[in-house]
């Protein structure tokens, strides 16, 4: 089976004033369909840059990103946006829901961006809401929800259009232990029940332990990849 994501010698150099700051120094990796991958590493190791490039929000300095066989790096800005719309779902640490919209409004907005005014999959939406335990929260605005509930809505929004990959950037970073646990369980459930590919950045070893595979990054390189137990033990 072809990988859902493949990066080849990915390099990213930021220009800060007159100084070049390398963020990625040749990152090569593959993610298979249905895989749940955690990326760990210290701050500034290039995790977020990697996520933004894979999500089509940044263009790398060099290298290649293939998503389901489509070369992201050869695309224009508009084409990358289109690919992001079709194949990527983002989940952020700060939830990033629209505060003026209800939970349902946030989901419908994502659907509208994905499919326009027509062709919405109401049954699919209900199924996602059921899995995430959000059926009775649809008419609440984000500020009327707990952090865990907000993050579940954000996950529902990311998954509602059935993207090829969910890119989660510290999804439990703003949550307490209890809510973190709920969110991680939900993500695992999505991965299992829908075969959803998930790439999650985390500092949290316990969160990383829920993944199928953990990739450790340092100074813009992938330095280790393996089962969670191996990588997390290796770090400590």
């Amino acid at each position, binding site marked *: 089976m072809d990988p859902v994501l493949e990066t080849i010698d990915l390099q990213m150099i930021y220009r800060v004033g007159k100084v070049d700051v390398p963020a990625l120094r040749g990152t090569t990796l593959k993610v298979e369909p249905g895989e749940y991958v955690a990326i760990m590493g210290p701050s500034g190791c290039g995790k977020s840059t990697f996520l933004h490039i894979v999500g089509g929000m940044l263009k790398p300095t060099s290298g290649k990103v293939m998503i389901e066989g489509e070369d992201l790096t050869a695309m224009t800005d508009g084409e990358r946006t289109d690919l992001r719309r079709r194949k990527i779902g983002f989940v952020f640490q700060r939830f*990033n829901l*629209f505060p003026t919209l209800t939970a349902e409004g946030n989901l419908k907005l994502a659907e509208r961006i994905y499919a326009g005014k027509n062709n919405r999959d109401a049954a699919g939406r209900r199924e996602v809401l059921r899995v995430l335990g959000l059926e009775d929260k649809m008419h609440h605005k984000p500020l009327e929800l707990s952090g865990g509930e907000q993050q579940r809505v954000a996950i529902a929004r990311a998954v509602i259009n059935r993207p090829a990959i969910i890119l989660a950037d510290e999804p439990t970073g703003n949550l307490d232990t209890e809510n973190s646990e709920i969110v991680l369980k939900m993500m695992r459930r999505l991965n299992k029940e829908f075969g959803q590919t998930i790439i999650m950045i985390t500092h949290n070893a316990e969160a990383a332990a829920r993944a199928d595979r953990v990739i450790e990054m340092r100074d813009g390189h992938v330095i280790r990849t393996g089962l969670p137990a191996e990588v997390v033990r290796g770090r400590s």
Partner: protein
Amino acid sequence: MDSLIAANISQRPLRTAISIIGVALGVILVTLFVGLARGMLRDVAQRQANVDAEIRFWPGGNISLAGNPLMLPARYADAILHGVQPTTEDPDLEPKPPISGIAATSAVGEYVQGSVAGIGFELVDGIDYPAFIRTTHLTIVQGRGLADGRTPDTEYEAIVDRYYADSGKDIDGKHVSVGSRITVLGHTFTVVGIYEPSVLARVKIPLHTLQQLLGGVENCTFVMVKCERPELANQVLEDLRRYYPGNRVILTNEIPALYAQGLVPVEIFLNVVIGLGLVISVLVILLAMYTTIIERTREIGILKSLGASKRFIVMTIEKEAALISAMGVLLGFVVAVIGKFAIEANTRLLIDLQPRWLFIAAVIGILGGLIGAIYPAARAANLDPVEAISYD
């Protein structure tokens, strides 16, 4: 709330209200000013149309709506009708025959005074009443006609048209009727009659009184010439031009065109008002939407992370601007209609709110809003998604 646009608009009610009022101001400006100009023009044209006399005889030189009003000797009215012969006082006077085909002439003095209501201006006619009714179809419907104004008890008498009587107030603040006292040229006049239909100025006083108030010279502004039959008008016109060279002789039905020429500056002014309305709408929406974009930078980043195209973002902002503009247009229409009735009730100004101009005002309001939103929308669409989503 499920609609992003509606949610955005309701999120900042004060700013939305200010934006709506801003657009409404532009719409009110256009509708009321254009309505006022059109209303007054239509009113003047209508009042000109009620003149029976086919020919208007003016002194030479430029015709001005606001120049010295009494420049033509009033005796021209007699001279045209009866001819001129040298007299012992003026033996050198060039003899002129009566112009054939003329049924009646009437000398009219016309003066522009500031409106008593304080807004705009109004015309006052000085007329020789018996001659005047022979050149128009003016009819007294209440009271009586004017005397010659040469005796103290008839000097400060006036007649007014039905509209003036219905809409005006006398100096005691009451509706105008026969016996009311009104202010004309700074003097108190007694209304002795109400006439129909409206012909020329709404207020008429004796020509002699007008002459006395404006300097005592026995002059008028123009002479109206009524032909025996309408088809004689061109022949009479030619004779008048031949025997009285140096004066302006015009067919009455050409006067609206003459007014139109004189109204070129008004048209320019209206275009400036329309431009101003557009600029107000553009600036109000530009500022409102620009502030919105800055405030919602992070939300735009979220839209981009969801895969929203530049077109989607531009359309979202433009739709929001269009909705605010549409509400501004509606508010503008409501205020303009209320303003029309308020102005017409308290002044003698007429405001003509034609559908065509309401449509133009609506287009200006909404177009202004859409244009004003272009820059903020383009700026939002071109935000860097990573920077936008990290914005605090």
